[in-house]
């Protein structure tokens, strides 16, 4: 009996350990596949040029239009998300500090909001666009993505703000700060590492999301100059190029995937580094 138990334990520890380690292998495998497959077609032209005539039949050019479009959209959307997400997170942690239950309810709703898939935001953005008589454009893409990433921004920032000791809050008020001064001058600075994480996480999500910009941003071979022009995005560039029957174009889709993966990896690692760096000077 005892031996069976010990055997069972050994088996499950081995099995669960295997599962845990295999996740590292899966990640390595995915990234390896993308990089190995995409490396052949990767060139400076890919990053530095927009598609020339006949690009989608194997002609000259690159995906700079999509890189620029994605960066524009993610950047604009992040700015909007900061403008509404940052004050919202501060409000939860400063003005609502005495209402524990309200705080928890709000967090609960925000978590639930986080779960809404991006295709729904995309469809809603499209409906909104029709309502205002807009065309698929940079602006429509930015607004849709901003809606998508705002809950992420609030919740990520809030996660750090909620750990700030109440004593700091009291100290700030005792010095004669108003509540918003406490929020923007003290809590914001104390939670700055969380703010950076929130921005980078939102930006990464914005740059990588395809379903929300599919309807709203349109697609173009040019780099948009105005907000009312359509904008290409990197995920869609990958998606469309993959649909081509021509092998060269498919190869380029893989190369574009390398570019996108590299951007996401850089953001992810950057977020780790910066949040560590900025939390060092903080009150513990």
């Amino acid at each position: 009996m005892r031996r069976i138990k010990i055997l069972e334990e050994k088996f499950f520890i081995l099995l669960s350990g295997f599962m845990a380690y295999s996740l590292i292998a899966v990640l390595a495998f995915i990234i390896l596949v993308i990089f190995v497959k995409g490396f052949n077609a990767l060139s400076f032209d890919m990053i530095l040029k927009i598609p020339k005539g006949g690009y989608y039949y194997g002609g000259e050019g690159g995906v700079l239009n999509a890189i620029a479009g994605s960066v524009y959209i993610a950047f604009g959307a992040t700015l909007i998300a900061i403008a509404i997400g940052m004050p919202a997170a501060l409000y939860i942690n400063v003005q609502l500090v005495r209402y524990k239950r309200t705080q928890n309810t709000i967090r609960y709703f925000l978590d639930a909001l986080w779960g809404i898939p991006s295709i729904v935001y995309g469809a809603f953005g499209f409906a909104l666009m029709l309502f205002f008589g807009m065309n698929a454009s940079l602006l429509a893409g930015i607004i849709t993505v901003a809606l998508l990433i705002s809950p992420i921004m609030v919740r990520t920032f809030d996660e750090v703000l909620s750990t700030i000791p109440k004593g700091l809050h009291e100290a700030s008020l005792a010095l004669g700060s108003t509540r918003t001064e406490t929020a923007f001058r003290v809590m914001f600075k104390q939670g700055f590492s969380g703010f950076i994480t929130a921005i980078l996480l939102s930006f990464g999500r914005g740059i990588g999301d395809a379903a929300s910009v599919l309807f709203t941003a349109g697609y173009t071979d040019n780099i948009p100059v105005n907000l009312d022009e359509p904008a290409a995005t990197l995920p869609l560039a990958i998606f469309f190029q993959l649909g081509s029957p021509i092998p060269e174009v498919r190869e380029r889709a893989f190369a574009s995937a390398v570019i996108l993966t590299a951007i996401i990896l850089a953001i992810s690692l950057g977020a780790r580094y910066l949040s560590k760096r900025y939390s060092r000077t903080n009150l513990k």
Partner: protein
Amino acid sequence: MQLKRLFIDKINGFWMITSLVTILCLPLIIGIGLYLKAEPLFGQQSFMSLVFSSQWAPSKGEFGFWPFIAGSLYVTLLSFLFTAPVCLLAAIYLTQFSSKQLIRIMHPVIDVLAGLPSVIYGVWGILIIVPFVSDFVAPFFGTTSSGYSILAGGIVLAVMCIPYILNMLIEVFNTVPSGLKEASLSMGATKWESVKHVVIRGNYPGIISAYGLGIAKAFGETIAVMMVVGNVVKVTANPLHAGYPLPALIANNYGEMLSIPMYDAALMFAAFLLLVIILAFNLIFRYLIHKTKRQ
């Protein structure tokens, strides 16, 4: 000076609360917007026939969503079957048996896995999973398949959902007080037995919630699934055949939806359906998690 400060305080306070209320009202606004857009459809077909009819012929004005709903359910179910045991075991290992060093490595690994865009998973699926299904799985069962199949969709989705579910499970298991485990150990149980009794049995609501939320996420995932699932309108029980999940329907047809009457309403209805189902899942299971956290 003092007055000016108090005035600024009021303005900023107003900005803060407006932002918060806007964000909290988002699902309501989205829901109403999509519903209004989908409304013309209800004049033509009853809700039940929309959901359960398999007649899909937009040009004839017939909108039966069952093939798509069934496709979504099938893909989601498959992905759940793959992820559930992996996540549970990995979470147990990482919270109960693992070295500190592995955990330090795992954090960024999970983060990066969660942060990879779905298009990247789609590309990976096309490169690896689709050929795997057509070259190995189908011949093994003595049939043929193009590889673009419900099974491929399920596998890709499963990999995508792992970091999401795993994160929540780890959070749930970390709340188990170590005293409980020690009590169980001191009664002569092996470590695995204590884990079975204390960590798994004691956390049923948390585990179920994590799974529920993972299912909701899989249900709404669009691009990656759409790239590998084949997109054929047909109800099928064979996972090696192509399917057509609901989100893929919306994403694939946005181009032509304004040229066929009622088509846009139908797609908005699909989006509305997704929103309602996923939001309901999230509200229910998040509630369970919040409740267990407070205990």
